[in-house]
């Protein structure tokens, strides 16, 4: 029930925020802040849960903390089946945390229809939380779509100069891949129906579906493409720079911080465990796409003069690592992928907030018009340096742990891939430091009378910095939470003999 409460709080909070606009223009953001805070208060109790055996279906490892099912459309075997394990828990926590950050970061940015803005933020969050806890494929798809529309509206209404194009592109990419996902889910369900005579969308039942290799192979492609578009992996990444650049700050934070993670989550939770044999077949290709993303994203990032666009392309590069880590499929690489998802969520969200802050102050994102900003905004400069360094993978911060583990894990599986992926660490240093030099260092291009970060912004930034340092210096708690899940996933794919480097 607590999971349903979590999602409901966000849904209802969004509606109240919208209504509250009619009473007072300041209230919507308070309503959002309070409802996300209430949702956040539910989280600590989840960390104390122990995996319990009774609720666990026989086929999976005992890693489920909560499982809960309510019939929805029984005729098709559709239920509101929600569950929480370590992986979901980490992702939900990241979502709520970044949701809080997004609301605070856009505190004074939105003048136009603040209530509807907060409504969209809250519904995006609710959709994302739903994606991370849904274990019924229909429910999963439902949430998968629910998170898109508010995000579309956020970009289309409150975006920057080219918002119409960017929001449409975002929606078309994700929606068409979503339809592909729907067809694949149905193909899987009907294949299972053909074998067992039982209509069900339950993840656990579908794990046991005995698919013929052909069916599994084609259906797997549907899942793979849908998730890789969202990730985004090369060559499906082209929506991302536009969407990120045009989105308002809060939406960029949510997009980079959590929406991209739903793609990675889908690959880990669904694509590989549901179709282990087929996944082995395409693993080299998937890792190759990952490497292409790492290097191509980095090169393009270096070519940008728009600060936000640069950060957006760096996301393509970082998420390439996640894709490699997932398809190397061993303990180290998966731990690395999870860590990279969280660390990238924090560091990129922070960089987007900085980009937003710069735009609010300078009314431009063009780095050629910046330079020497450290003089007028030393606090912002220092903080930016921290996140730039985190993003380029400095040891001691979370991103390093993630990328290092991914490379370690992949080395056992495929050495050439590892070598090329490691190049990404160098290119990251190039574009990240370039961005720093163009904006905050060098001679000031003009006399500026701008405000430095205030207390509100500093406190948000410090929270994220603490998070990254903690992940970098003492990542063990994260691994403790996620390891039982990963162990369970190996168990599911263990029957696949050709899988290299399993536990």
């Amino acid at each position: 029930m607590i999971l349903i409460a979590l999602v409901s709080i966000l849904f209802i909070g969004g509606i109240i925020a919208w209504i509250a606009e009619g009473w007072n223009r300041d209230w919507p953001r308070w309503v959002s802040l309070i409802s996300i805070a209430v949702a956040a208060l539910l989280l600590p109790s989840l960390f104390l849960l122990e995996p319990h055996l009774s609720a666990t279906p026989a086929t999976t490892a005992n890693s489920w903390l909560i499982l809960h099912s309510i019939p929805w459309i029984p005729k098709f075997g559709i239920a509101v089946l929600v569950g929480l394990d370590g992986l979901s828990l980490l992702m939900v926590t990241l979502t709520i945390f970044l949701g809080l950050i997004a609301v605070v970061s856009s505190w004074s940015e939105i003048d136009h229809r603040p209530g509807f803005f907060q409504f969209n933020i809250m519904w995006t969050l609710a959709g994302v939380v739903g994606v991370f806890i849904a274990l019924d494929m229909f429910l999963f798809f439902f949430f998968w779509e629910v998170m898109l529309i508010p995000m579309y509206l956020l970009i289309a209404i409150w975006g920057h100069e080219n918002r119409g194009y960017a929001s449409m592109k975002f929606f078309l990419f994700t929606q068409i891949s979503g339809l592909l996902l729907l067809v694949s889910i149905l193909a899987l369900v009907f294949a299972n129906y053909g074998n067992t005579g039982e209509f069900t969308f339950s993840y656990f039942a579908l794990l046991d579906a005995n698919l013929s290799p052909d069916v599994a192979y084609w259906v797997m492609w549907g899942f793979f493409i849908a998730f890789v578009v969202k990730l985004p992996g090369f060559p499906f990444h082209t929506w991302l720079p536009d969407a990120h650049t045009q989105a308002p700050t809060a939406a960029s934070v949510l997009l980079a911080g959590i929406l991209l993670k739903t793609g990675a989550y889908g690959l880990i939770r669904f694509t590989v465990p549901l179709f282990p044999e087929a996944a082995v077949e395409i693993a080299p290709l998937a890792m190759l796409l990952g490497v292409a993303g790492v290097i191509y994203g980095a090169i393009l990032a270096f070519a940008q003069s728009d600060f936000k666009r640069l950060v957006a392309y760096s996301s393509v590069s970082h998420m390439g690592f996640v894709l490699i880590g997932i398809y190397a499929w061993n303990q180290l690489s998966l731990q690395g992928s999870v860590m990279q998802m969280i660390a990238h969520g924090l560091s990129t969200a922070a960089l987007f907030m900085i980009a937003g802050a710069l735009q609010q102050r300078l009314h431009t994102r063009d780095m050629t018009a910046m330079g020497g900003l450290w003089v007028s905004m030393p606090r912002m400069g220092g903080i930016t340096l921290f996140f730039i360094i985190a993003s380029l993978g400095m040891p001691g911060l979370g991103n390093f742990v993630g990328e290092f583990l991914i490379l370690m894990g992949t080395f056992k599986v495929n050495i050439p891939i590892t070598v090329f992926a490691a190049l990404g660490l160098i290119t990251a240093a190039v574009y990240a430091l370039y961005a720093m030099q163009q904006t905050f260092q060098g001679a000031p291009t003009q006399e500026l009378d701008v405000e430095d970060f205030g207390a509100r912004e500093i406190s948000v930034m410090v929270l994220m910095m603490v998070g990254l340092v903690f992940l970098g210096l003492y990542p063990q708690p994260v691994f403790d939470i996620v390891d039982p899940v990963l162990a369970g996933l190996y168990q599911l794919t263990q029957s696949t003999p050709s899988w290299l480097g399993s536990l």
Partner: protein
Amino acid sequence: MTFLDFQALSPLLALTATILVVLMIIAYNRNHKVVCTTTVIGLFITLATIPCVIGIDPVQVTQLLVIDRFALLLITLIALVTIAVSLLAYDYFDGNSGRPEEFYLLLMLSALGGMVLVSSTHFASFLLGLELLSISLYALISYPIKGLIPLEAAVKYLILSGVASATLLMGAALLYAGLGTLSFEQLGSGFYPEQATVQAYIVIGSALLLTGLAFKLSLVPFHMWTPDVYEGAPAPVTAFVATVSKGAIFALMVRFFVLTGAFEYQSILVGLSVFAIGSMLAGNLLALMQNNVKRMLAYSSIAHIGYLLVAFISGGITGGMALALEASIFFLVAYIVTTLGAFGIVTILSNSDESRDCDALENYTGLFWRRPALAGAFSIILFSLAGIPLTAGFIGKFYIIAAGVKGTLWLLIATLVVGSGIGIYYYLRVIYTMTLKSTSTEPIRIPVASGWVMLLVTATILTLGVYPTPFIDMLGDLAKSLT
């Protein structure tokens, strides 16, 4: 005819009585409000008779009509849509020049034609219903006396619909020549004859019949009239044409195929597949190029009937009939409710005194900020048309894909996915336009009755989208009883 027969026909009789009463009232005293109120009351009485029939169905009333659950569901739907259209039309015509009273008369006649269609099991009643529906529509389309556009639309519809009826009749004649009967059920028992000549009669007859139906359903390549008629007709009539007229004809097609077993002819299924693919692609591609909301909705309705055919065709696959019927009916209901809502919005923004309805895309600029409730309802309707979760359109599309996957119609499914992808673009374009900064500050008045209609339509779309279980259960029984 026994008493039972009359009892079974009571919805049709109630509507007929209402038509006569309204005719008398108009003759005695022209009063827009009274006529509209009587119409709505009469339609509610029609609805109220349906529970009296539910206990005794199915009843075969002579050879011509059958009143069963399927017919009753569609009669209910037609009555509800007609009530909604009457209320929308009241606000559309209210206080304007011209004499709107006969409008309701024609509307009810047309609805009666639709009700006859959905319950007919014989070519005689089929044609009777079809002509009742169509002839009233010619007059309805050209009802406002405000210029040439409605007139042009009506003439276009008159000619093309007449051709379609003629084609249909020829098809029926050939079937009769081959099998010597006009009753669907008896046609079915002789549908697979040994002799090649009779088979040829049947295939050619069915082809002509399908052509006629495709005209009425505006399937590609017989869709040319649709955008012009949708654009030219007054908005409430467009709502009626797009929902009742198409829905009733599709229902008849379902009945014909189920009773005759025409699904067994592979060539018929191939023909339908060509219609479906053409409609999904051409409808969506042409909709992309429209800057007129009514024309855009016209092309999108072409595409939607194409989607509907995907589910219908899957009925030809062994064992797929029940799911195919269930999916078709669910999608049809979702389509009718959503389309009614879409044209309802256009109606609210339009006025019969202006030379054009409010159908240019730029008229919708900034609607979100001028009338958030109206724009919100329109967004939900457009999301439903695009097939996005939380709406009836999503469950409908889900059903269709389910039926298609079960029937392994991969080509059709692929076309559907591509078509839906294109569709998203033009639906979102309208929503995007509504979110732009407003150019006009002229206040928009939402009339009370139309406002309630839109509220109910939106609520239905969301209810069917979030908790469709009761309706699905009902459809399951219905589909089983049909097959």
